[in-house]
Every structure is written in C-alpha cells, then in structure tokens.
C-alpha cells in the first residue's frame, strides 16, 4: 500500500509518565503536560499518543490525542471532555501516573510548497499548535480556527494567545469572521498553497472544496476509535481508493483525494 507518507515507519513506544500540569484552556477544554520517565522520540505534527491512567483497567484503552511541544521528557496535549474517558482525564490532578503509547501514525508530510494553510475545527488545532510556529520560520504559514460560536470564546482566546496571527471563524458570527473554517480557508487560499486540516469529519469532507479551488496538496487528519494504535487490531480502518487503511499506521493523515468519503 502506498499510503505510508514516511518512508521509514517507526513503531510506537510504551512509556510511563506523570501529569505535570492540567490547566483550563477555555470553554471546558484542558491543556495538559505529561512528563515521561524515559526520553521521548521525536514526533512530527499529526502524530499522536494513546494516553491512559496507569495500573487500572477501567478505562481500559488509551485515548488518542495529537501531541505537540513533544521533546525530551515532556509532551503536551489539548483536549475536550466529550465522554467518559476524556471526562475522567480532565479530572485528574497533577502527579497522576499515566501510560503513553506513541508517537503513533504517520503525521503530516514534509511541506513541499512555500505557503502552508493549517485549518482546524475546534480541538483540531492541537496538532498545529507548534507546527504553526515551527514552519513559519521557513514558510508562509496561515492558521485558521473554526468554532461553532460564542460558547468557544475562551478557547479561541487561548488559541490566539499562542498563535497571535490566527484567523478565527465562527458559524454564528460571534467570534472572528462569520462562516466556517472551510470558507475562511477558501477566502485565504492562493494558488500552490499546501493545505492541512484537522477537525470533525463533516468539516474534513467539506475541505474537498479546496481541491475545486485548485489546491493540489490537501491533507486531512482523520479520527477513529482505536485499540492498539500500532496496526494490529484493524479497529480503526478507513476506506481509501487504495483499499482499507488503518488510521493508526497509514493515517491519521491522508491525502484528501485518497479517502472514500461516502463509505
């Protein structure tokens, strides 16, 4: 299968660590740092870790979260409590022992264009939080955050504190420009721009409009429930033009065109 963007795939490591801090990131979201007992390998934007509480079997499985600022013995995550696992995670105090498996997945490919547009739907900003800064040293980087509306004001502010030139769009028009992240991206798109997107599935599907607008390199990071994070269980499969792919190995980042959106 030709879906592996990186020529040499590195299997994930199983690491132990502790929550170093857990802070509010606005609108119910949490910003957490894990300090690992042993050194982390390098990670690239779009890669992720499975995170779970150590030593207990409920919750059982690690939950996948995009990592950022990962280096040495610490790695950061940004998440929103949406279910049992994330709600529990949000309630854990610093010092709690956790298991990490990662970095998993392919991550985004090395950019080939001179300009990069990063398009995030709400928590989809996570993989771009340091990518934006990292790439803007050498490339023109435009970051877009789309949120549903006023409930997301604090979170939008938190993101703007980190990416001052971020473009924010809200469906209800109460924060930043009115409209969706995709519309915002279309309005900023210039020929030859490379576009990366991360967010809810419907948004990613709509990103297809970028192709129509002439975008040649359009990559999206997809979400699936996962068990192993290393290509064993086939629980995370995604239908692509090249056949069934695993979000945790051949993904989570796919070329938009590869994905069979209407499966």
């Amino acid at each position, binding site marked *: 299968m030709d879906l592996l963007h990186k020529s040499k795939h590195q299997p994930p490591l199983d690491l132990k660590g502790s929550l170093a801090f857990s802070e509010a990131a606005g609108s119910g979201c949490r910003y957490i740092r894990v300090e690992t007992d042993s050194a982390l390998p390098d990670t690239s934007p779009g890669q992720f870790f499975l995170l779970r509480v150590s030593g207990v079997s409920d919750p*059982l499985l690690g939950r996948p979260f995009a990592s950022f600022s990962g280096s040495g013995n610490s790695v950061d995550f940004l998440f929103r409590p949406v279910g049992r696992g994330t709600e529990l995670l949000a309630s854990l105090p610093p010092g709690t022992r956790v298991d990490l498996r990662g970095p998993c997945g392919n991550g985004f490919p090395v950019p080939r264009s001179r300009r990069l547009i990063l398009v995030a739907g709400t928590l989809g900003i996570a993989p771009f939080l340091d990518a934006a800064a990292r790439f803007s040293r050498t490339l023109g980087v435009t970051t877009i955050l789309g949120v549903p509306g006023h409930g997301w004001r604090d979170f939008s502010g938190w993101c703007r504190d980190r990416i001052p030139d971020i473009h924010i769009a809200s469906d209800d028009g109460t924060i930043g420009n009115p409209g969706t992240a995709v519309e915002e991206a279309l309005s900023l798109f210039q020929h030859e721009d490379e576009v990366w997107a991360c967010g809810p599935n419907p948004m990613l599907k709509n990103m297809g409009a970028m192709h129509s607008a002439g975008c040649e390199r359009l990559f999206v990071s997809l979400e699936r429930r996962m*068990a*192993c994070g290393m*290509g064993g*269980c086939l629980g995370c*499969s995604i239908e692509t033009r090249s056949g069934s792919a695993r979000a945790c190995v051949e993904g989570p980042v796919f070329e938009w065109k590869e994905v069979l959106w209407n499966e």
Partner: protein
Amino acid sequence: MSKLAGLHINVGGVSMETPVIIASGVWPMNPSLWPKGSLEGVGAICSKAITLEPRAGNRGNRLRETHSGLLNSIGLQNGGAVSFIENDLPALSSSGKPVVANIAFETLDELRMIIERLNSCRDMIGAIEMNVSCPNVSMGGMAWGMDKGSLERSVTAARSLWEGPLWVKLSPQAPSIATAARICETSGAQAVVVGNTWLGMAMDNDREEPFFDRVFAGLSGPAIFPLSLRLVWEAAGSVNIPVVGCGGICGPEEALSMFLAGASAVALGTGLFLDSRIPSSTCEKLSEHMKRRSIPEIKDLAGRGRHFRRLQGGA
C-alpha cells in the same frame, strides 16, 4: 537468555522458547510495525484469522470499550489465504518465532481449500489453529464450535488434511467446554485454545439502536478473566492434550493463575493494547515463581493449583 531458563515447552507439537503466545487478531502481521523489544518473552505468534477469500470485515462501529473490557466486531478482515502466504507468512516466519495460522471457514470445502494452500508452505507454519469461535461473522466462525457434530466433523476433516500440529480455538459459548475439548481431543487435535471472546453487546442509547451493525460483538480484556479461568479449569480437567489459556490475561499474575488452573501456555490479546511488554514481564514472573517453588520446568507448573486440599462440600 538465562531469564528464560525452564520456560521452553512443546505445546501440541509446537516447540516454543516460552509459553507466551500472541493471540490472533491483535498484532500487526507486518514485523516492521512491531515495537522494539516487544517480542521479548514471546513464544509464538498467531496470525489474524485467515479465510479462503479476502474479506473486508464489518462495516460500522468496530470497537467499543466497556468496564475493563473491549467489544470488537472486526469481522475477520483479511486478505485471504493466498495473500497471507505470499505477503505475510514469509515475514512473520523470519521473525524466528513459530507462526500459528488461525483459520476460519464457512464450509468444510473452504476448510479443505485453506489447508491445501497452507500445505504448500508447511515448513513456515508452526501449527494450524482452527477458529471455530469467532462471534463476529454470520456464517462459519462460532457456529462450528457450538454443536458437537459440526465440531467433530470439522476437526476430523482438518486432521485428515493437515499433517502438522493442529490446535482448535474453542468458543466460550459452547454449551460445555469440557465436552467440546474432549471432542477435539478424540478427533485428533493436539491442543485446545480456551477460549475466544465472549458474546456481548452494547446499545447506542442516544440513537436507540444497537451500537454494532451486527448487534452482538465479542468481549475481551480483563473483565472476562475470571470466566476464562473457569473454562480453562473445566477443559484441563477433561482432556490430556495441552490447554492454551486465553481471555483477559493482562498481567503476570493472571497468566500464572492460568497455569495453576491447568494451562500449558497462555495467549495474550487485549493486554497487548495496554502494554507490549506483558510477555516479558509474564516470563519473569513465571521464572520467579518456579524458582521459589523449585519447579524446574514450566510444564510442571501446569495444573499445580488443581491439587487443592480444601473440601468441596458446601454449607
């Protein structure tokens, strides 16, 4: 590798460096995806279920976590027997660990054809593990393991076609695991794996419909361990061929319990999702226990917990 001293065992015709097997369907078939060091302590590797033709697996939700458990409805997604032999087997086999080929079939004809294919690469296969216990397909799978007659027919058929070691992976849904194991033994199986996932289900409360398209799914993980251990106790009490304990083992203590209850080896599935080093820590624990009790060989551990002295009389 003196850490592994005494752990060598022959299970139903398969010689393994340790009695810890990677269960079917949980481990990548491509060795380049295996985490560094994760084969430490592993005695054999089961393939994902192999069917005659390629299968796309089930649509819709495939995984759902429960309290200390995992429901899966993968549905035997695989590339078919030919692709297994051409793409997966050579790499798997070059890992140096015996490969246990887990096979699933709908008809006896299909069983025959799969075994014929595997016969062409007999030397790369440690054993065939007949999967008569997959709850996630509508035909074949578990159906073969539920009924005495069909179990006997299928094992007898496989035995006549395959000269190598033959294992049968039984279903916890079998009305009597002791009977099922005995049928396997008399039909020529050299080991029974006890067992596969337990039939469960989940509801999508918001949508007011079953979470899985196929309604039922297979429950694995620590939640089922006490149930699997009981099955192993029952099966080991009824046959002389080795029993491989499988179901919910997520740590060394649980593995040790399986041996004491009568297992000659253990297979790890869901536990590997949590920690790929469980095979290694299991081997350490087994060695330590054996040392403390002066048990020279792992085979002497199997069933040591069966000679208990308390009375069985109830109140």
